[in-house]
């Protein structure tokens, strides 16, 4: 039976944040939390200064330095003068406006989408923005979190609102259980492989189903993080007991009597029974194998058990052409077994897979192995807290003993702004989120995988079907 009053999680948050809507104008949406890093904010601060506008609510902002920061030799000044200026500009802007900045000396420093959840800064039901497309990460908490441009960063600082058209809603349901060798990353890649990088355009995705509910908060963050790679404005998961347990006690969590009031509200947020979605996509958890991207778009992905496709295998001319061009860039022949693709580099880290669970999963595979001859392998924790935790658990030793480098936190080789990059033609098993041409360095070739798959590839020098290996 259809309940006409049934609402989705997205609709509930939308309605609770609508400040004003008059015909002919974009609805004005209130923003609760604003996250910031050094790359997409300097021009916004400059705009405020030119217009002589203050930051409306400095306490709504949490900032970090992550994109340009070196992951080694952190005691020395940043060698690249332009990067150094960008970092110094961020520090000066935050000081001027009294903003909470986790700078490079701060023990809370790390990648913005890693540090924000660590401190409980985003709660269920919040509208959260950041000049960064991977803001979708925070949808894992049942928040509406999305990336914005620098003009919008300035807009939010000045007004605490954004003119926003309401998105369509998409339900992505993953039924059944995942195999023990598959992770949230494999779900994300399988979903993008199915619906394409434009499949979510104009939509907010709610992820649900048994396999999604079974994910830890960290797994949900990985999944929502990559909603943008499917073209969606945001990804979200309904808040549940795991969400509440994760937030409770953290620095910015509601305290005392507020906790109960907040909890009651959060429990009212999940989509109502019978709520309508504009689009629904269903995957079977046990159909998902460990995924490896083979091309230059996250939708160009295949199970590790399969082969690189040929252009002729696509019915669609555009996809065939895209395949041909991607194979050319990637230096791959259609029909190659994925497990025959040899790598030069392995990277574990990023806002997608730079959390403690990711390093635990990778360390479990890396333990007692040796990085293959000719392969460089770097492990880059997403934050100092992740680094310290991993070191307490002895994970750093496992990586170091296996021949990995153990670095300081930052975005690092996910987008290669800080000097960590591939050379022309080098091939990388990467736990990051984008395999675009040149993303990890000009001419670099990126294969997106889960942390365990990256660790296995580093040891073998090529991709490995970890499910077969462990089963034997």
């Amino acid at each position, binding site marked *: 039976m259809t309940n006409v009053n049934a609402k989705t999680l997205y609709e509930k948050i939308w309605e609770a944040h609508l400040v004003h809507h008059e015909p*002919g104008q974009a609805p004005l949406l209130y923003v609760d939390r604003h996250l910031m890093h050094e790359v997409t904010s300097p021009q916004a601060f400059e705009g405020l200064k030119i217009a002589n506008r203050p930051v409306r609510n400095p306490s709504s902002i949490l900032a970090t330095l992550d994109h340009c920061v070196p992951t080694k030799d952190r005691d020395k000044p940043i060698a690249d003068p332009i990067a150094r200026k960008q970092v110094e500009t961020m520090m000066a802007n935050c000081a001027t406006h009294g903003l909470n900045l986790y700078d490079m000396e701060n023990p809370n420093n790390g990648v913005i989408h890693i540090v924000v959840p660590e401190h409980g800064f985003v709660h269920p039901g919040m509208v959260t923005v950041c*000049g960064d497309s991977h803001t979708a990460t925070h949808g894992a908490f049942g928040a509406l979190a999305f990336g914005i441009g*620098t003009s919008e960063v300035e807009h939010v600082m000045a007004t605490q609102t954004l003119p926003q058209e309401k998105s369509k809603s998409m339900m992505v349901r993953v039924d059944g259980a995942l195999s023990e060798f598959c992770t949230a990353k494999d779900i994300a890649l399988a979903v993008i492989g199915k619906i394409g990088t*434009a499949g979510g355009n104009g939509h907010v995705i709610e992820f649900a189903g048994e396999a999604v509910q079974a994910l830890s908060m960290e797994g949900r963050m990985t999944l929502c993080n990559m909603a943008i790679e499917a073209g969606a404005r945001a990804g979200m998961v309904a808040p549940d007991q795991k969400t509440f347990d994760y937030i409770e006690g953290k620095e910015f969590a509601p305290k005392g009597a507020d906790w109960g009031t907040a909890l009651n509200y959060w429990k009212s947020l999940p989509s109502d029974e019978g709520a309508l979605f504009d689009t629904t996509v269903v995957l079977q958890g046990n159909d998902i194998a460990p995924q490896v991207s083979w091309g230059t778009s996250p939708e160009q992905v295949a199970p590790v058990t399969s082969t690189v496709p040929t252009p002729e295998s696509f019915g669609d001319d555009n996809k065939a052409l895209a395949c041909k061009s991607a194979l050319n860039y990637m230096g791959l022949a259609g029909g190659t077994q994925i497990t025959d693709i040899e790598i030069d580099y392995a990277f574990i880290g990023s806002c997608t897979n730079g959390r403690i669970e990711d390093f635990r999963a990778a360390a479990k595979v890396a333990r007692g192995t040796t990085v293959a001859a000719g392969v460089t392998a770097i492990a880059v924790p997403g934050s100092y807290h992740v680094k310290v935790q991993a070191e307490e658990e002895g994970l750093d030793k496992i990586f170091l003993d296996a021949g990995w480098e153990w670095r300081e936190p930052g975005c690092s080789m996910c987008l*290669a702004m800080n000097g960590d990059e591939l050379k022309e033609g080098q091939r990388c098993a990467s736990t990051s989120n*984008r395999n675009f041409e*040149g993303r990890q360095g000009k001419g670099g070739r990126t294969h997106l995988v889960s942390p365990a798959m990256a660790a296995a590839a580093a040891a073998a020098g090529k991709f490995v079907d970890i499910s077969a290996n462990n089963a034997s």
Partner: protein
Amino acid sequence: MEPYKNHNSVAALMNRNNVDTDQIVPKQFLKKVERTGFGAHLFHDWRFNPDGSDDITFELNKPAFKGAKILVTGDNFGCGSSREHAPWAIADYGFNTIISTSFADIFYNNCFKNSILPLIVDGAKLDALMNEIASNEGVSFTVDLENQTVTTPAGNGFSFDIEPFRKHNMINGLDDIGLTLVHEDKISTFESNQKQSMPWLWRNA
């Protein structure tokens, strides 16, 4: 923001799908703290040879497309990062109109903040426009934002939809922030109500 004026300009053809923001402006150029000068880096990795000279095989380097203000391109243009450096580079290079079947959401929003008009057409219309350019490189199209039309010499013109507020802002070069601050009283009222109903949001931050 610069007001958007009607114009008759060369339309350049870039027949590629899923052009991502890492291609539009590669990350090594994102370290600047200014908004200006990004046009020199537009499509850097495709546009230039390793020695810095123009790669003559890259479509936008064709002499016929010099001075183009209109870019006709494939599906899902601007996917990837939220970097506004991408539309800054496009505008600084000289484009003010992009025609495609679809755009990535964040990129699409960013265009309107930078006086770039992103126009969506169906696949058949895009093919017709692409064919017209391919068979007559250097052809000029006319964009009339007030009347919401594009006209072409071969008759492949079309009318387009645009939200009235976006059209108004573009034609008048209006600052979004100023327009929002007209509603300052409503924002303050919203905040007072939220402080009452969800006090925890205001205590810890």
